[in-house]
């Protein structure tokens, strides 16, 4: 064990190690997992000049409070996060999207995400953690990945190795929120009544508290199924919107079950995944229909925007 480590004073809510996730394992029931807001995950590592697949801590609503013991190390926080640094008994407000060098005995208190869900924390060193199927991403449902597949717990130690020095790096970035989620019609769109089809694109839906890394449950006008409320179980992908018999949509997110038996009314386009996942319970959603070629163009723009942001960090 290295001598440099963070001690977890407060674990926070759903704090897990994440990276870009896993590939080619859906057929055995293992989803991709990985950071749920890919852009903020990429930004935290770019700010620290880390590899693009470097592990980061992802937290929801409230992050961990950590105390650091060891040689100077740089950290960064991304997302819309309120946090404090406590250095030699002096508290200062932390700023997201910049590298911060901390020293022995310094504390970081990731208090809360502001009108959003997920935040990211990383360091200029290697976390001593386990990988499974080439990824550290923690899937708490199957206990796969770093930290024995579990979320962080109070008073555990996070050891770090190979601390690297960097000069200060930062970027100006403001997280914008969206209400309109763009979707492509699903393979079972015609299972729903004409009225349900219209309501799906015109009514408002609300994010409920029953939302996590597996999926986001919504409530709104009940969507009436006129064919069958079950289909023969088949594969799922991130973004698929399933509607079970109760008529309330569920959107699949990073840790989704790989197979499901509810009709698919639509699929969220890839470009909107990051912002969708950041909508806290109570948020309003309106679905807007786009076609495949629009979705592909919108994704190219999203990628370009992300890459431009990353290239601006020096």
């Amino acid at each position: 064990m290295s001598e440099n480590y963070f001690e977890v004073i407060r674990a926070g809510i759903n704090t897990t190690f994440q990276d870009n996730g896993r590939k080619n394992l859906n057929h055995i029931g293992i989803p991709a997992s990985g950071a749920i807001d890919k852009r903020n995950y990429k930004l935290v590592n770019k700010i620290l000049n880390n590899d693009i697949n470097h592990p980061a801590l992802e937290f929801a609503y409230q992050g961990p409070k950590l105390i650091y013991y060891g040689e100077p190390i740089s950290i960064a926080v991304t997302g819309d996060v309120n946090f404090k640094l406590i250095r030699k008994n002096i508290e200062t407000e932390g700023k997201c999207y910049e590298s911060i060098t901390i020293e022995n005995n310094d504390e970081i208190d990731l208090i809360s995400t502001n009108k959003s869900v997920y935040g990211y924390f990383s360091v200029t060193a290697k976390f001593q953690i386990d990988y499974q199927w080439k990824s550290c991403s923690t899937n708490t449902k199957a206990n796969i990945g770093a930290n024995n597949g579990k979320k962080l717990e109070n008073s555990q130690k996070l050891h770090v190795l190979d601390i690297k020095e960097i000069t200060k790096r930062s970027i100006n970035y403001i997280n914008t929120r969206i209400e309109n989620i763009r979707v492509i019609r699903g393979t079972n769109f015609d299972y729903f009544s004409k009225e349900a089809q219209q309501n799906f694109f015109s009514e408002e839906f609300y994010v409920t508290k029953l939302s996590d890394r597996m999926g986001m449950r919504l409530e709104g006008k009940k969507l009436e199924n006129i064919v069958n409320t079950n289909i023969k179980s088949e594969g799922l992908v991130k973004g698929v919107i399933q509607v079970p018999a109760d008529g309330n949509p569920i959107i699949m997110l990073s840790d989704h079950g790989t197979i499901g038996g509810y009709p698919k009314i639509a699929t969220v386009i890839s470009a909107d995944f990051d912002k969708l996942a950041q909508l806290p319970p109570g948020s309003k959603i309106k679905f807007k229909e786009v076609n495949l070629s629009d979705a592909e163009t919108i994704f190219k723009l999203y990628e370009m925007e992300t890459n431009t942001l990353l290239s601006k960090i020096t």
Partner: protein
Amino acid sequence: MIKNISNLGDAAVYCDFGKEVNKEVNSKVIKYFKNLKEQNFEGIINLTPSYNKLIISFDLTVTNFKKVKQIVENLDIKEISSTSEKKIEIPICCDKEFALDLNRLENKLNKSAKEILETFFSKEYFCYMTGFIAGMPFFGDLEKNLQAKRLETPRVKVPKGSIGLTEQFCNIYTFESPGGWNIIGNTPLKVFDTSNEDAPNLINPGDTVRFKEINIEEYRNFNE
């Protein structure tokens, strides 16, 4: 062989092999799955075969629907050796503490518990697919007189190792998980092993299983 190819969102190809669910249709799905897996096409990041569908997920930064659809359409399907198709025996204990829905099934099917279990244990089952949760196998086909719908309100927690029945299928819960299948027993067998990265699944699509009833002592002593 594929009846229809469409897009599922902007980053997946949805291959529909037809409405029927049987061993023959599923074998075609598996054949496509194995060929695509073996040829390791650039940009394909996940393959999800099921009873009668195959979903191919791809990296939208590398490829797109049109290109992956072409790969599928032009795929040269080779016979892939079936040496991996095993026969496995699964011990199940149907003691009261495990058979959570046996009473309910007696009413639904209008049969005694004894009749239900005798029928269930009387044949071999074919593994159509694995998934939902890591390593969960889906088998078929149950005899017509054992076919029942899902629970109206799914359980929040189905215990690990549970054997569930629904329609023509049965499955094994490899982890504690939410679920709505009719639970008739529990296996002490380790069906999914996270420490074995090369072959975490005990049972794979194409395998055949036979369930064997064990009593509560045998269950308790199983892992000793």
